[in-house]
């Protein structure tokens, strides 16, 4: 591992430990609640029936099966938010955070190219989200079964991959905005706003006919929560999410390797 990559990876150590433990803990908590949710499955599903169609569209109608339960929390709610928060934060910190903290000058005064720094930061971001994905995957498979929260390893792996890809896509957008502007808070604010708008667009797009044509603009549309855990991977969806990350990286590279750095 190159010195640059080792450095970029070490920058995530605290995030990894903190959010990794958080993930395990929340999965344990959610799993522990599952039996009582399942017992009142009829009530839960009746409750779901009364929810607006847009929300049902997001999570599916069934909240009581293990798949539906996981779609509702890990993949559709708390877990999803956690992954996006970590990815957007890490992406924004990668370049803009160092630039604002004035650590970037010294880092770049060593025999490295800006492109190499950007690449190491991007790889570390992918690594961070992948490891968190593996932790989430393992946590569900380990702490789920004692509470009857049982899902297959293959669909779980496919769903986790989609979650990781979605998080990396938003993280890459934050990284690109940060690498372009040099402002961490700008990168976080814009990316978060984009994520929220995409979420709303995807939610409304399912029910409001006028918005349906715009729905493909939302990354959440390609993430497809209702289909997670129900089968294998849709390669089209994988490509859209991965392609977004690659496009963001190309934009970041084009600008960051040429622009003036803030002093």
């Amino acid at each position, binding site marked *: 591992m190159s010195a640059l990559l080792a450095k970029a990876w070490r920058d995530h150590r605290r995030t990894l430990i903190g959010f990794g433990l958080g993930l395990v803990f929340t999965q344990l908590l959610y799993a522990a609640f599952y039996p009582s949710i399942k017992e009142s499955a009829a009530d839960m599903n009746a409750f779901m029936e009364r929810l607006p169609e847009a929300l049902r569209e997001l999570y599916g109608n069934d909240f009581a099966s293990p798949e539906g339960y996981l779609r509702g929390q890990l993949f559709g709610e708390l877990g999803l938010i956690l992954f996006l928060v970590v990815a957007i934060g890490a992406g924004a910190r990668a370049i803009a955070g160092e630039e604002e903290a004035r650590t970037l000058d*010294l880092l770049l005064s060593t*025999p490295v*190219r800006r492109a190499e720094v950007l690449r190491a930061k991007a790889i570390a971001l992918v690594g961070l989200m992948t490891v968190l994905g593996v932790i989430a995957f393992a946590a569900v498979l380990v702490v789920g079964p004692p509470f009857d929260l049982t899902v297959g390893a293959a669909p779980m792996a496919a769903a986790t991959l989609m979650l990781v890809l979605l998080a990396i896509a938003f993280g890459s957008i934050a990284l690109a905005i940060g690498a372009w502007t040099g402002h961490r808070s700008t990168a976080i604010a814009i990316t978060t706003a984009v994520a929220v708008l995409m979420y709303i667009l995807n939610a409304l797009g399912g029910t409001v006919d006028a918005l349906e044509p715009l729905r493909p603009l939302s990354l959440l549309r390609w993430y497809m929560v209702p289909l997670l855990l129900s089968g294998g991977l849709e390669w089209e969806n994988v490509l859209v999410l991965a392609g977004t990350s690659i496009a963001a990286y190309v934009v970041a590279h084009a600008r960051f390797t040429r622009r*003036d*750095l803030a002093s």
Partner: protein
Amino acid sequence: MGADVPVIVAEHLTKFYGSSRGVVDLEFEVHAGEVFGYLGPNGAGKSTTIRTMLDFIRPTSGKITVLGLDPTTETPELHRRVGYVPGEFGLYERLTGREYLKTFTALRAGAGADRVEDLARRLALDLDVRIKDLSHGNKRKVGLLQAFMHEPDLLVLDEPTQGLDPLVQQEFYAMIDEARERGATVFLSSHVMPEVERVCDRVAIIREGRLITVDDVGDLKAKALRTVEFHFEGPVPASAFASLASVVDAEQRGDSVLMTVRGPLDEVVKEAARHPVVNIETREPSLEDIFLEAYRNGAEP
């Protein structure tokens, strides 16, 4: 690299940030093995010049060549041979000094790893303290250490002694002297004149983005104004001195005549010798005087 090849060459170097001025049409050369002082107040363009040398910013027009390399394309080759202390910098606060410097020696393929302990001892820096717990001065030492540890061919130092206590400053001057002895070149920006006088062979003075002087420190001083005060036994009119070519200004104060002289004192001493002299006080022009004069005139002193 031969001794006659300049280490830094600025050719019409110009940098604008949008419409605001960075530096304008800079022309200078820094020779191999010299300590080159770069003087100017804050905002004059010192850091702008330095940041083009390391490719942190790109010239608007003109160019700068460092160690015979183009910073914009041959960046890693250049940075391998340069040690840099920014005017203001941040460090990875959660690391200890030792961890930080280990990261930097790793980024430099191990160069300087064997000198870290020695330099830390000389600068009185505790490497086991987390950087966030270090004082401002101690953080500056970490910055100095990473610049000197790999014994670079060129040291680019932007206001390097700010925040250092006097003892550490002396050690820093010794490190500059050692760098010079092993043939390294030093580009030192500063607004601390005694420091520049202490360590620099040549200086450039920059004002509002433009160079107004590039000269030897000695020549600058020889050409500069100095203050001379003669104490006589009785009153002597200032007019006797004011008419001399080398005297810029003369003023009688009781039994004394206070004057400002440019160049050799010969004429003045001979005129004064016509009267009974009690005492002579003369003050070497400090670089500060030269600097201030150059600044007032905005031209060659």
